[in-house]
């Protein structure tokens, strides 16, 4: 099959899946079967694209052209392929996990959840393969809209408020800042296509470059740079599988992916370095890394702590992108994968704890490692990846990031990185320590009589799987590295 057909299938499979899920709403087993089938098919298609060496040279595919110059255009490039691969792989695993979670917790509106999940994945694929800013914007917005019902899933006051916050921040930044930025690029560069080496004219004034970068930095709200990161912790009212896939992988990675893509294919390294505008991003990202870690330290709610950790980790990727050296771009790509595998494991762990023990707070987790050894074991591995210690994938990406900083010469960033690593230890290690080495404590709600073991097997299987992926990335980083080489070779 030609790769253009495969690219279209990537978007169509989840969409068709969504329709079929809707049709089979009365038979939960068939419905879940459809979800798993479409996830598996999607993964197969993306794998097909990955394994086909000619796929990256396929060229572009124009689906429609509503306004002259602004076409809906798909194009495959290494960064997008990586993002699509990570998202589709994790969709399959998350589906497994979701089924266990939703059934064990007897959640309402399950059909709506699965449908929105599938649509969100279709949008993610669209973002990954967008050939120009216009297409990117369309799928960026559909991703926001399709994930809103997931955030507001519980339909209680908290969920509705969280949903409003989520939608309000993401929509207002994208319409208010990102869209003007895109239009500006169109006017300045006469094109909104993603071209290696950028489309902006080299004679653009320094102020314009700064302002434009500012618009992109905050317009892409999903990248959660401070101070517009607040939607992410608010979105934690969603059921845990949603937080896991969307707010550790699809949505937030879409944000940093857009950011890196804009830096690589719209701006060029020359323009940014000459005007010094990349300092803006570097500063914002550094501040976000440190401040978000500090806030994470104070969170007692496990999911909120993870959310702030995500905010901080996302800025690693933005920072790596903003350094504008080939090796730091490699770091950004590696960290997209490493953080995805690690953070999804952590969220899976949080969900498993909630399902089995109904505990949501860090302070309640003493001794839980003995009741749920698999879950907490995977959690510990993911923690290593977050901190960046071997033998976890996070080490590799941090290694490349250090090299990137070395070559670009922003020495103070080493300090930031060091500080953040310490902070990561400070907010993750106590959880693992308490889980394994402290005696269980009892609160009025949690009495010794409520003995519990592991969560349902599908959930445990899923989180072990993602933990193994985290380890694999350390031992076999080539899968990502060769894509990075192609990106740097082409750009």
């Amino acid at each position, binding site marked *: 099959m030609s790769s253009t057909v495969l690219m279209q299938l990537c978007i169509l499979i989840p969409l068709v899946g969504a329709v079929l899920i809707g049709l089979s709403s009365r038979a939960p087993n068939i419905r879940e079967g459809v979800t798993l089938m479409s996830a598996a098919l999607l993964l197969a298609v993306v794998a097909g694209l990955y394994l086909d060496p000619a796929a990256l040279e396929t060229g572009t595919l124009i689906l429609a052209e*509503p*306004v002259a110059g602004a076409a809906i255009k798909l194009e495959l490039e290494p960064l997008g392929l990586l993002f699509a691969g990570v998202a589709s792989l994790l969709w399959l695993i998350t589906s497994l996990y979701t089924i266990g979670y939703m059934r064990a917790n007897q959640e309402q509106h399950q059909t709506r959840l699965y449908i929105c999940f599938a649509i969100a994945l279709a949008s993610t694929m669209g973002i990954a393969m967008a050939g120009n800013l216009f297409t990117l914007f369309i799928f960026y917005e559909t991703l926001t809209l399709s994930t809103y019902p997931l955030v*507001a899933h519980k*339909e209680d006051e908290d*969920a509705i408020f969280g949903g409003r916050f989520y*939608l309000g921040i993401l929509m207002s930044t994208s*319409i208010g800042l990102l869209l003007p930025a895109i*239009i500006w690029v169109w006017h300045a560069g006469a094109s909104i296509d993603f071209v290696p080496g950028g489309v902006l004219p080299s004679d653009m004034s320094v102020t314009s470059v700064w302002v434009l970068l500012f618009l992109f930095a905050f317009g892409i709200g999903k990248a959660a740079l401070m101070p517009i990161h607040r939607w992410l912790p608010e979105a934690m009212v969603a059921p845990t599988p949603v937080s896991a896939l969307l707010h550790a992988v699809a949505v937030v990675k879409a944000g940093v992916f857009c950011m890196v893509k804009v830096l690589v294919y719209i701006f060029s390294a020359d323009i940014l370095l000459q005007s010094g505008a990349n300092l803006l991003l570097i500063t914002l990202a550094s501040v976000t890394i440190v401040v978000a870690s500090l806030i994470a330290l104070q969170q007692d709610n496990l999911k909120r702590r993870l959310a702030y950790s995500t905010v901080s980790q996302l800025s690693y990727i933005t920072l790596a992108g903003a350094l504008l050296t080939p090796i730091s771009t490699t770091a950004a790509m590696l960290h997209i994968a490493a953080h995805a595998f690690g953070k999804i494991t952590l969220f899976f762990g949080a969900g498993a704890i909630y399902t089995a023990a109904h505990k949501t707070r860090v302070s309640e987790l003493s001794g839980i490692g003995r009741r749920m050894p698999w879950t907490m074991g995977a959690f510990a591995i993911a923690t290593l990846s977050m901190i960046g210690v071997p033998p976890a994938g996070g080490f590799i990406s941090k290694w490349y990031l250090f090299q990137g900083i070395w070559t670009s010469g922003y020495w103070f960033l080493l300090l930031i990185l060091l500080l953040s690593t310490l902070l990561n230890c400070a907010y993750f290690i106590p959880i693992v320590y308490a889980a394994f080495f402290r005696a269980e404590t009892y609160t009025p709600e949690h009495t010794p009589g409520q003995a519990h073991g592991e969560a349902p097997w599908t959930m445990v299987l899923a989180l072990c799987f993602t933990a193994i992926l985290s380890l694999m990335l350390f031992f076999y980083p080539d899968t990502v590295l060769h894509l990075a080489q192609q990106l740097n070779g082409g750009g």
Partner: protein
Amino acid sequence: MNHLPAIQVIIPLLSAPLCLLLRWRTGAWLIALLATWATFGVSLVLFRTVMLHGAISYDMGGWPAPWGINYHIDSLSAFLVLIVTGIGALTLAYAYKSVKREIRPESLRAFYALLLICQAGLLGIAVTGDAFNMYVFLEISSLSAYALIGLGQRRRALRAAFQYLVMGTIGATFILIGIGLLYSLTGTLNIQDLAARVALIPESAYGHRTLITAFAFLTVGFSLKLALFPLHLWLPNAYTYAPSVVTVFLAATATKVAVYMLLRFSFCILGKRFVFEQLTLGNILLLPSLAAILIGSMVAIFQYDIKRMLAYSSIGQIGYMTLGISLNSHAGLSAGILHMFNHALMKGALFMVMGAVVYRTGSVYLSDFRGLGRRMPWTMAAFVLGGMSLIGFPLTAGFISKWILVEATLEAGWWPVTGIVLLGSLLAVIYLWRVIETAYFNPRHEIEHGTEEAPLSLLLPMWILVGANIYFGIDTSIPLDMAERAATLLISGGAL
């Protein structure tokens, strides 16, 4: 000789008395349905002819132009006729059940007759090439519209109709005074003839002042009819209390026709140079347009009657059209004209949703929407999609007109205006979101009234319009081409 230009006005005009003469109520609807579909067919033929061969000129009764009344259909008229007849045809298909529920049986036949007369009037305005004839058609459409609004279920409909009657009549009188002044100055009423003679009046001449006065009266008159902020006061009540079908029809067509008249008089009679360079209509329209976009949308956020909310949203959307005109550039005019078409599609769809909700629940307060996402899934899905078009979400028709408008503002270098256009979209997100959130994310209403989906005869026209919103958001060639042609025509003074 080809009589189609006359026939399409005559069909609804003559079918109206037939509706009244018939004693059979369903028959009245059937006649109206047939009449609107026949006019739609005719308008398609006309549209095609104009697209292929250029403007059509038709002399009424065979009298040549300056003496007799002349119908002139160019690309702008053809576009407008297509909007009016298309919406008319869908509205009538939609009307049967909704009207049966909302209108007293004894007024049914009169209702259909009035609706047809109103359509005839609007079509007449679009095709006539005679200024006074245009006024006559305006009165035909307006008077029938007042009566139609007065037929609303609630007693307040009468007050709304009276309010509209007073404001509308003031507007129409101003227009009449303007036309009278032009006549006294030139001695002719034919639009092409008028244009030629007005162009000959030198700036220093005594008559020039008369011209300015005529312009002032006409602009205020049209602004009243098209509900330009702050002359919009009649609109929210009229749209809120009118029967659902009437709201669909008027919201999608009547204001567009008023915009058309403004365009026709400004560009084709008074001339672009006089209107925009000497009297700066661009600046005159700019501020009210921006105020309409901002204030209309903001007021919409605080409405609890959703029909009223959409009415305020209409005021904002009209602001987009007049903003396009005030830019006085090819791109701006194209955007304004395209938005006439796209706004008809989206507001038609949204008001049809309102009709369906009224059909099942009796009213459209925000609280009535609780749990509707589950009870009326198709209706609410149509609301979501129509709303996305209203916001200007990519892949919907609304996006295209906003995109071109933004382009035009950038071309003119009006950065702050671009910001306001985008802000308007954000405000639209807010006011539509209240409804969507209530419909999908609220526990069900305790009082169970009407637990099923709206009937198919309401859903089908609604979804045709929703489909059109999406289709014309992806394949924009036809409306965009037409809007650009119309803009070219206007800028050249209508001489094509």
